[in-house]
């Protein structure tokens, strides 16, 4: 884990830092709202509410706006048409949140009890401690997390049934072994945060450990090409998937794509190529491995892409054979319910998990020693600020809060299962005026 055996951070220093960081959060009500936290998409309220949820297992009932941000559009303008009080389901009514990850007639059945799993964040973009914490939480909740493109640290092996192996365009750290141990293999074609760019881990995050995992050189920017050099068509894409199936026939295949204007064509092509899961990655997503210019010049919002794909696949008559997961800016349980109502089966979470661990969206992720909370860093010192067990507990409580809120929403709509919500655009309303 350390870059040099000579560097042994003093545990007391680390403990002090941890304490200082976490105390800051715990004291926010007394200190008042932090003056410069967040942005219209991730407001200070949302960041703080996520922190509270990860502390307590519940979103705060009052004091903080924990449902929507202040972007003035998209998710933040969508509202549910809740039933009148007397039509809603009672608190005691069970509500089912599970979703299947394979809807084709063949291949292994995998179901996850909550409609989300953790998105791909590479070793390099985040620390091994954070990866480990996410994997622990995924195991505890019977869902998944993804390796991202940066290799498969051995420390994740005990959680391999809940870890998705990502094959992205640089294929860093991808080996037959890491494919063979996976129940789901994810092809990352593009990422909504940096469509058309492949990956770009800046040199200052490519520490010696990261370089070793990727078998490259330290302190050199690592580019994943765009696109796959061997995939320029659906026929190539099918061949690519066939290859993974030749190595690991039991794996489900997920295809992660960004949201160009012809995202519907991409979706139908992925279906024909044999994918089980289509992850549509919208433009609000974060990334710890892209330069500033890429992060700010972005693809189609996920709220537009998902209905487009959903309706198109319905018209083609193949919607019920593929699982669509939305990602890239899913912040709250409300976002999850809204995107499902727009046509997704479930979601993939990224930034919200980091927010649960203290991320304040300071947007300094791509700098080597830039993350003050030790999340998106591979620095041997900074990464010690997160203990995996602590991270796993917090993520577990976040999941608990998300599930509880999601059940509340479904009860309010009179639905007993999340699957009934899919594609129910009629249950949404677009608020014309800003609140």
């Amino acid at each position, binding site marked *: 884990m350390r870059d040099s055996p000579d560097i042994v951070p003093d545990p007391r220093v680390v403990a002090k830092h941890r304490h200082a960081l976490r105390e800051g959060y715990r004291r926010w009500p007394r200190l008042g709202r932090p003056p410069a936290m967040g942005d219209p998409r991730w407001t200070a309220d949302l960041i703080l509410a996520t922190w509270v949820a990860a502390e307590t297992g519940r979103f705060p009932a009052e004091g903080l706006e924990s449902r929507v941000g202040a972007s003035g559009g998209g998710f933040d303008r969508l509202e549910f048409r809740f039933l009148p009080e007397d039509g809603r389901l009672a608190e005691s009514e069970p509500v089912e949140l599970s979703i299947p990850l394979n809807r084709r007639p063949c291949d292994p059945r995998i179901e996850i009890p909550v409609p989300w799993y953790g998105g791909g964040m590479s070793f390099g973009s985040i620390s091994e401690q954070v990866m480990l914490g996410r994997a622990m939480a995924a195991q505890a909740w019977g869902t998944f997390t993804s390796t991202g493109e940066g290799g498969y640290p051995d420390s994740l092996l005990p959680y391999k049934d809940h870890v998705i192996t990502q094959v992205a365009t640089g294929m860093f750290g991808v080996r037959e072994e890491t494919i063979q141990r996976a129940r789901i293999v994810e092809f990352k074609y593009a990422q909504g945060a940096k469509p058309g760019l492949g990956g770009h881990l800046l040199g200052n995050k490519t520490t010696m450990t990261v370089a070793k995992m990727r078998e490259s050189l330290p302190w050199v920017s690592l580019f994943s090409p765009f696109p796959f050099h061997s995939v320029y068509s659906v026929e190539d894409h099918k061949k690519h998937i066939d290859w993974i199936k030749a190595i690991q026939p039991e794996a489900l295949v997920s295809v992660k794509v960004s949201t160009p204007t012809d995202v519907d064509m991409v979706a139908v092509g992925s279906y024909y190529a044999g994918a089980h899961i289509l992850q549509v990655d919208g433009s609000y997503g974060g990334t710890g491995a892209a330069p500033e210019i890429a992060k700010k010049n972005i693809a189609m919002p996920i709220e537009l892409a998902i209905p487009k794909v959903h309706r198109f696949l319905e018209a083609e008559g193949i919607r019920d054979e593929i699982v669509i997961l939305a990602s890239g800016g899913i912040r709250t349980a409300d976002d999850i319910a809204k995107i499902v109502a727009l046509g997704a089966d479930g979601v993939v979470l990224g930034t919200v998990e980091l927010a649960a661990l203290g991320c304040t969206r300071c947007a300094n992720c791509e700098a*080597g020693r830039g993350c003050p909370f030790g999340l998106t860093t591979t620095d041997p010192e900074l990464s010690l600020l997160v203990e995996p067990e602590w991270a796993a507990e917090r993520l577990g409580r976040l999941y608990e809060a998300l599930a509880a809120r999601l059940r509340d929403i479904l009860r309010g709509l009179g639905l007993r299962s999340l699957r009934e919500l899919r594609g129910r655009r009629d249950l949404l309303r677009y608020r014309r005026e800003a609140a």
Partner: protein
Amino acid sequence: MSADLATRLLLSRRELPAPAEIARRKLDAEGGCGVIGIACETPLAGRHLLQALRQMRNRGNGKGGGIAAAGLDPEFFGVAPTWLRQDYLLAVAYLDPACRPEVERTAIEPTFEVDAVFEFPTLGAREAIPGLDVTPPAVVGYFARVRPDVRRAFCERHGLPEGSAAEDEIVYQNTYGLNRAFYAATGDKRAFVLSHGKDLLILKMVGYGDDVVRYYRLEDLRAHVWIGHHRYPTKGKVWHPGGAHPFAGMHEALVHNGDFANYASICAYLAQRRIYPLFLTDTEVAVLVYDLLHRVYGYPSEYVIEAMAPTTERDYCMLPASRREIYGWLQALHMRGSPDGPWFFLLAQSLPAREVVRLMGITDTSMLRPQVFALQRGEVAVGFAASEKQAIDAALESLSADDPRFWPRADLYWNARGGSHTDGGAFLFTVARENGGAPQLACTDKFGRLIEPDPARRPPRWAIRRGVAATDAPPSLGEGPPEEVFAALVERVPHWDYETLAGALELLVERAAGRERAAVVEILTRLLDRRYGTGSMKRSGVLALVEEALGRVWDGVRRAPNGSWRWYGWGEPEPPAPGDAETTLVVDARGFPPEGPESLARAIVRQYRRGFRRMVVARTRGQRFIGCGLGPESSGVRLEIYGSPGDYLASGLDGAEVVVHASGQDQMAQIMRRGTLVVHGDVGQTFMYAGKGGEVFILGNAAGRPLINAVGSPRVVINGTCLDYLAESFMAGDPLNGGGFVILNGIAFDDDGRIVELPTPYPGGNLFSLASGGAIYVRDPYGTVGEDQLNGGEIVPLGEGDWQAMLPCLEKNARWFGIPVARLLEVDGRPRPPREVYRKVQPSRHRALLPEEAWVKRGFARPAAAHWRRLRRRLARR
């Protein structure tokens, strides 16, 4: 053609009704395709194309297939040969047969005098072919001439001279009108024109390409040029044959594998010339652009190719000044009509004025689609262009089973370098009849340079009679150790003819029936792998015979397996588990699907798990993923591959040894990590993409983009050359401290098996671009590789440490291929020190020391305790 004529032709289209708006978006998304083209001096029956197309079904999805033929056999249609040259063959597809009288009355008879009508026979109901979703259209061929009065009136109205140019334009405009009336992309789909050229026919439908041959009963139609296509459209529940390939220009048909990014731009470019697509696919606009450049502007082929696939970057600079000037103008004029994106075109074309038919393959500037060309020159010559080598081999096998003038292996196989100054990325196979003699095939590149195997060597007559006594057979043949027998054979082969060689091989096959199977396999394999003189025989003929002999040895294993040799084939019961690790399993690949749970690759993994450690994979025919899935515990496993293996071979290899006694195809050895890969031939595109390690030896060339994004410690020897982008973003550490490197030897073998130097070891640009680690060692004694081929790299002299790192690889290379290290160090016949022969390409030192790097470096330098004391002091001060 004069500019004036071109202008008048374009002006004559003023009256054509334009669509309400110019197409901006394609109707269908094209998901890729499989293509093949054949050109031959003798007309070939459609069933040979069928074989090749059947081999590539996995490149289509059965939602569109088609064929085109040029240089047709008049007997099939029952017409006079002169009619084929003089008459337009108007092939009309009737989706709604009831509209035929209306079409004829309104769109054929007013323009044409019809000499003959040919109704294409079919298999009848679509159920005759399993898997057909849509009934193929009824097709009627009209052999027709333009009415003289129509021609006269047209020419007068537009000030055109009476002649073929005007007639062609009338036919073109008539077809546009017919298609617009009866098959608008958005309205009724009742009938459309498949093709309207002279001596050219297109047929297509919703199905696979080979289904077209079957359904329209073209197995026995003979033609000089064929192209076939499988389509992979992915949008829409309803497909129409109008969207399938090929599309017709004037006297040419075009099939295409790829996808254009600038469809709207091309449509705008065409609309400025009053050309409007009606079927809304990439392929249609591609052939419209071709027709414009070729027929209307009258450009020679070279300029048409340049306008479509421009020569760029360094390749442009390498052109002679005269070409640069013309190409500069062509690019300035036509760049907006040049398809951008991955594509590979095949055209079947007739040039009726010159009694010429030809096959043309053009690849895009970046070579992003699979493509391979081949040529066999026997009593009759045949040329090929296809997506995969294995499809060419399937066609040759089908041909040789039918006609003794063909044998199962081509003389030459090669890849085109798209948009290059070397071959221009395009090849033409022209079948012409000089002075009324027999048709002659000539293969030329974009620049008109002839591609030709050594004409002095005699072709075999296939199905060579066996049992001719090998009078001169070496005495050791029946018993000697393999190396000795091989050496003795190589000495004699140059003096033999095919019959004598066949006799000697027969003796070897007999010997294999005894206890000496392993020795015989070794001898035959060496005959297959090594380069040696073949005297008056063609190497391709010798190899075809050796492969046939090997096939009989494998059949012998099947008939008489024993403790050390087992056999396994498609649909056969599994062989008994191996006695020990020495048992060799012969897996006969025939019949195994190319992918999926029943595939050859999975069968190999199953047998590996049952304990087999040595496997011969015989008679491969395009099966993919061979050697994938063995996993990281596979050290000590050895696979020997024969035949025509498919894509992704050994991708993921992590310990095993894979020896390919043939050329490989695309995507080989991706993410390979450990183990050994040996290829006694060429490898295709994106070879060893994201490779991580292992030792790899390639006897021949690598196509485009080898070793991109490779990391770790791959050690690779490529004895030939690479087309482009060698080792882009290479990150394989320090080659002097266990990191990776590529040795590029830049050599080839002449027909007598002698090593010769290529003009340059690396003709392309983008060598080692953006690389951050590793090195390329180029054997370049004359210093032909220049800094202008690099992008972020630098050329430095070879150091002693470099040579020490290279030497073990070169020694192994010598053992595998018989290329002595001493010979590599020879320049002009004289031994030279390594530093005068090899040059090193390494990443240029432009990295700045990042703060983080500096921080860690400090940590390295200082004892930890002192470091932390300082840190604490600093913290305390705050």
